[in-house]
């Protein structure tokens, strides 16, 4: 049974169409990530699911109930906001307990649920502090705790990591993945960061300009992007795109090849000049300038000794070539 379904959902603010018809089925217990560039409508779509925003047309189904007219608190969902949105005047316990108190749940039960959430999130020592006395990472955990205690069927996260520093971001990412396994609830997570999407998602929904470009597991999107947008968005460094004669040889408008599928080899078909080298230790990114195709990145495992200005030959691994037609849609792989 689908735990969340969107049916032809659209949203316009005045004359601007922000969501242009989205259909989606989310399975029970799935970790779904909405990813896309800033302003593509991820937050708007999440807020429509939450009920904070009314869709212009279409339906939202949660469980087996159409919730178009159901207020946010009655949808059986909990949301974690980008700015955490904790209540500044309440301490951590108060922040986590408010929704339960409002529902009229008995005191002992509220205490028990707060205790359990605090255990999971290591918040025991902080229960009597106010948000202003917490660090960014702690506030984040309180915001998650406030969602957990409500025991929702569906969690919504809107860019929960974007206010954290890089190290904390990686840690919290792992925490969120663990939490999802522990709770087993359905989770919809919004981010503009494709790394977060790749590492967390069961399935990724790539959004662009208010439309779904592709839905699939991280490796599906990585291996078989449906179009140029997804190909360019998923993966880091970005996939290289080559047009012109080289693409035409393969019967395509554009040819895509990921940096990790390019080798520098003397028998390679493409000649290019090294313009910049980045040493990451485990890998080396070699950026080369290719006549009429611009900058191309190649990712070499380990240390590669190349100097800017050096002429090299590039060799694509044939089975990893991606071909796109004039509309940017993926063509079937050459056999």
């Amino acid at each position, binding site marked *: 049974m689908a735990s969340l379904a969107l049916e032809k959902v659209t949203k316009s603010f005045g004359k601007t169409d922000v969501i242009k018809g989205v259909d989606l089925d989310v399975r029970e217990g799935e970790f779904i990530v909405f990813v896309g560039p800033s302003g593509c409508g991820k937050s708007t779509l999440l807020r429509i699911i939450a009920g*904070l925003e009314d869709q212009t047309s279409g339906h939202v189904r949660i469980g087996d109930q159409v919730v178009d007219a159901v207020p946010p608190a009655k949808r059986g969902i909990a949301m974690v906001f980008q700015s955490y949105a904790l209540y500044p005047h309440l301490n951590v316990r108060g922040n986590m307990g408010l929704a339960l108190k409002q529902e009229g749940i008995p005191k002992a039960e509220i205490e028990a649920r707060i205790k359990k959430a605090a255990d999971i999130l290591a918040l025991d020592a902080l229960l009597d502090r106010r948000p202003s006395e917490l660090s960014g990472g702690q506030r984040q955990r309180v915001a998650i705790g406030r969602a957990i205690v409500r025991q929702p069927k569906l969690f919504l996260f809107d860019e929960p990591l974007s206010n954290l520093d890089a190290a904390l971001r990686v840690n919290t990412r792992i925490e969120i993945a663990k939490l999802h396994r522990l709770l087993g609830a359905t989770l919809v997570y919004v981010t503009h960061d494709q790394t977060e999407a790749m590492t967390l998602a069961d399935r990724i929904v790539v959004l662009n300009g208010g439309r779904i470009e592709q839905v699939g597991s991280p490796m599906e999107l990585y291996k078989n992007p449906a179009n140029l947008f997804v190909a360019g968005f998923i993966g880091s460094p970005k996939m290289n795109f080559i047009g012109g004669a080289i693409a035409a040889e393969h019967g395509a408008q554009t040819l895509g090849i990921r940096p990790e599928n390019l080798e520098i080899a003397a028998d390679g078909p493409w000649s290019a000049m090294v313009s910049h080298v980045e040493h990451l230790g485990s890998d080396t990114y070699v950026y080369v300038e290719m006549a009429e195709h611009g900058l191309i990145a190649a990712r070499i495992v380990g240390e590669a000794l190349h100097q800017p200005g050096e002429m090299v030959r590039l060799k694509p691994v044939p089975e990893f070539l991606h071909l796109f037609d004039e509309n940017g849609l993926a063509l079937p792989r050459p056999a």
Partner: protein
Amino acid sequence: MSDIQVARRQRRWHIAVFLLPALIVYTAIMIVPLAQTLNLSLFHNDAQNAVHFVGIENFRTLFVEPRWAAQFWNALRNNFVFFLIHMVVQNPIGIALAALLSIPRLPGRAFYRTAFFVPTMLSFVIVGFAWKLILSPIWGVTPSILGAVHLKWLFAPWLGKESSALITVALISVWQFVGIPMMLIYAALLGIPDEVIEAAEMDGVVGPSQFWKIKLPLILPTIGIVSVLTFVGNFNAFDLIYSAQGALAGPNFSTDILGTFLYRTFFGFQLQLGDHYMGATIATVMFFIILAGVCAYLFLIQKRMRRYQF
């Protein structure tokens, strides 16, 4: 080490230089007059018009000598009533209006906001005179309006009756100034981040309970400031009563507050001669009442109140 100290000393000079203009202006128009008023309250003239230092004798006269004390305590009591009416009527209405104005997607918001604020910008002379006309039993519109809805029996010459004059004047003042707490609190409400309110929506805290449990606690610091402004404004009030009820604050001094009492004492009125020394004494007492009120707020209330950073 000594270089640093030299640098520091130089920086201090800058500070002094920049503070000087403000200090001069403030001293000339605030501190000197205040000091002179305080000083004046310690002197009195005798029958030969010779001025003597009398210490706190003027204050004793004001507080206990029957002729003065009756007027003083009457004005002080009226002033407290005036203040309390503002606190229980003006500020709650201001908060309520602000809460209504901050309803998302309220149609005509700018119109309401302006409409409620306009009286604040009117001259007290216009307000006092207009309400005198409106409430007049002879040419006022109130009796006929009440008559039109068959409620004429409700009407009384409110400004002319000792029992109701003070309340009526206070309510006129509330009508005039309700825009100020409304604006301050409206601004405070707008300062609450949308996401906090949305989190409350998600948590099922909606409608009135959202106001009581989320918004009100977050605007308490502003309500504190509004209260202290009300206190200072009310204990300095004079103009509305002067223009609506005259310097004698009739009927029979029932609307007399410290401001009007000070005015009559200092400048004299009709048969009463002006007495600068007793006037300065009343002004001094007013100064200390307001000082005490503001200090109580700063040291007792504000210290316990939290300001929230969102």
